[in-house]
């Protein structure tokens, strides 16, 4: 694991892993979509709208996973000052923000036919919106500060402060009386969802996770190359200035 912390070795590994991971994403998402639309039965209460769950729930999980990843990477940036930790955090933010956006929109589209409204200021919905806004804040911070090291340290502090929102999202349905349903998959007494619906959900979650990792690896490679390009452009400018002098 420590050897992977070397950017050059990391880039070599990424070029090997990417084709296999791309194939895995296609297989998992293809199987998941087939199970979601052709095998999973309609819910006895919600009818066909339960099919929104197969994208809404994995998207929400990955939005939280992405932020947890950023918070762990923030510790790597602040304690060990490792450049790859900052690269990992910075590149996870747009991906996590996209999944948070998908979770919010699909939840809203699921809520209208089931609850009769697109939005309520419910604890779960509001904390998820706060997560999306935190992602946007982090992206803005990284864009605003030009020097990557300074931007990374500032963003790491913000990421760690915002990490308090993750347990709030998870336990909001237990701590407050909400319109959103309580936990029905990862709970003490086991899942309350029928296996006919649970299997497509897990396959779609695996596909979404593989997609997250794939996008993250490509984005990390691009970010490492961007920092190399930046360093070389500075060298070029310095050389030109010396030649003129």
């Amino acid at each position, binding site marked *: 694991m420590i050897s992977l912390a070397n950017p050059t070795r990391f880039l070599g590994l990424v070029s090997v892993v990417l084709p296999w991971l791309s194939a895995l994403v296609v297989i998992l998402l293809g199987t998941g979509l087939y199970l979601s639309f052709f095998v999973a039965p309609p819910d006895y209460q919600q009818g066909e709208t339960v*099919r929104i769950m197969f994208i*809404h729930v994995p998207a929400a999980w990955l939005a939280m996973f992405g932020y947890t990843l950023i918070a762990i990477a923030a510790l790597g940036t602040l304690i060990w000052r490792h450049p790859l930790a900052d690269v990992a955090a910075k590149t996870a933010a747009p991906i996590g923000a996209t999944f948070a956006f998908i979770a919010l929109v699909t939840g809203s*589209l699921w809520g*209208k*036919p089931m609850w009769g409204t697109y939005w309520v200021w419910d604890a779960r919905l509001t904390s998820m919106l706060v997560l999306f806004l935190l992602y946007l804040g982090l992206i803005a911070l990284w864009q605003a500060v030009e020097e990557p090291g300074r931007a990374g340290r500032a963003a790491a502090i913000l990421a760690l402060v915002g990490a308090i929102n993750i347990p709030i999202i998870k336990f909001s349905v237990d701590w407050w009386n909400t319109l959103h349903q309580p936990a029905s998959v990862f709970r003490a007494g086991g899942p309350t969802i029928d296996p006919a619906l649970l299997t497509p959900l897990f396959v779609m979650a695996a596909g979404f996770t593989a997609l997250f990792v794939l996008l993250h690896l*490509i984005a990390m490679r691009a970010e490492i190359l961007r920092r*190399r*390009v930046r360093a070389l452009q500075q060298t070029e400018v310095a050389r030109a200035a010396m030649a003129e002098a």
Partner: protein
Amino acid sequence: MFDLGPHASFIVAAYGVTVVAVGALLIATLEDDRKQRRLLTDLERKGIRRRSAAKPPVKQVAPPVKTTAAKPQATRMPAKRKPAKRKPAKSAATKSRARKSPS
């Protein structure tokens, strides 16, 4: 085509938004990766390389074969180091004399 019931438009819209959002993210990520690679290649073509990539690969060249007998080179022996001077330790008699001497 299967029937998605009375709320088909919500289901289709949810999947549509997901496809568009993920597709846009994938395209943007791949495009950024391609752009950075192109920029790096352009800089390297100009001869600007990273320090670790700047050194050309070392070629193993065989040493030239000498046709004439070379003079034996005098090997330079390392100079003998003189042992460091040590202060002679005071003898027990000296020490006792020093102790006994009136201050």
